[in-house]
């Protein structure tokens, strides 16, 4: 069998194949450290039976959906209390509820978000407004500069 322009076609196919499978072999064999989020905070340590709002596996996969629903309920409908399927009540607030236990953003939130390839400066951008526990005002020093600028 003769393929017209066979050389080019085969080279083209080869290049195509390499490109398409790039994501499969590029990272292959490299060990990636596990995300290993830490739940060692004073409040969690003091808990008799450690539990979150929903079971752990659901929190891992669904916390962002849960937070989105909370946002809608609080901001748009004025509801502030969440009754979990087990009957416990929670204040629907990142600041006063989530961070009450998870007061270690760097060792908890960030570890997973970074592991999942979310650049923490941009995405998730929850924290550009919601205040992280112990957060120092990152740019308080800039103020003086602008004061000068405006004069």
């Amino acid at each position, binding site marked *: 069998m003769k393929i017209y322009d066979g050389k080019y076609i085969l080279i083209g196919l080869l290049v195509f194949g390499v490109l398409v499978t790039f994501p499969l072999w590029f990272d292959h064999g490299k060990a990636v450290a596990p995300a290993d989020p830490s739940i060692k905070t004073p409040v969690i340590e003091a808990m008799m039976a450690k539990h979150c709002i929903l079971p752990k596996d659901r929190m891992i996969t669904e916390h962002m959906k849960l937070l989105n629903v909370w946002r809608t309920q609080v901001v748009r409908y*004025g509801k502030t209390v969440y009754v979990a*399927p087990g009957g416990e009540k929670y204040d629907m607030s990142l600041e006063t509820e989530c961070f009450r236990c998870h007061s270690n953003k760097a060792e908890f939130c960030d570890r997973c978000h970074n592991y999942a390839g979310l650049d923490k400066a941009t995405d998730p951008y929850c924290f550009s407004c919601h*205040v992280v526990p112990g957060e120092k*005002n*990152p740019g308080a020093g800039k103020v003086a500069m*602008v004061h000068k600028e405006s004069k």
Partner: protein
Amino acid sequence: MDTSRRDFLKIGGLCALGLSSVEVAEAFAKSQASKYLTNPKAGAAKRWAMAIDVKKCWKAEKKECKDCILACDWAHNVPDIPVKRQEVKWLWNEKYENAFPDQESELEPVEVKEKPFLVLCNQCAHAPCVRVCPTQATFKNDQGITMMDMHRCIGCRYCMAACPYGARSFNWRDPRPYITKINPDYPTRDRGVVEKCDFCVERLAVGKIPACVEACKSKALIFGDLDDPNSDLRKALASRYSIRRKPELGTMPGVYYLM
């Protein structure tokens, strides 16, 4: 295969039963699912509104009182931006000629001309800002408050153009560096959203009164339900002459000035 009329009806009936059982299962699942409640302590009103006793305020103003403004700024992480046209304001002082431009006669008592009037979002019943917002980021809640949903705001600033009171501020830059001390219980804002007073909706939701009302030692701010004839607010309005800002525009402002 022959299907008798009788069999057809039987199968049809079974199918219908099957379909309805899906609904039953769904309804059951819903009753089992999580619920969202209001805090039992939450304040209730058909329409929250405010009266500002101007005379009481002026008395305290002699002593340079700014308690209400400071309380508000702290409660909501309002930044202090030095560039005038980029200022962010929720509650601030304005001169009579600016607060009530159409009411001016130029012959008012000196006191009225010179003294400050506290201004804030009027939580208008017919709020023009709500009508123009393309994303419904600003909307009326069921207690008459003009709400801001920062997550939805796209920063188009239509609402600022629509508000006849200049009650809204745009975040031209990241406000964080301009907040001297951050209140950890309340979010800050991000660059590119509009903000304004919302009668401390987060405090009302847990049974508190607005931060400014609480902070005012002279009791110059009276807060209550405009629809309840027995509220302190209505009693105050019934006993003293009051004015509102630009009522002729038909926005039906909910902030009254007791003169």
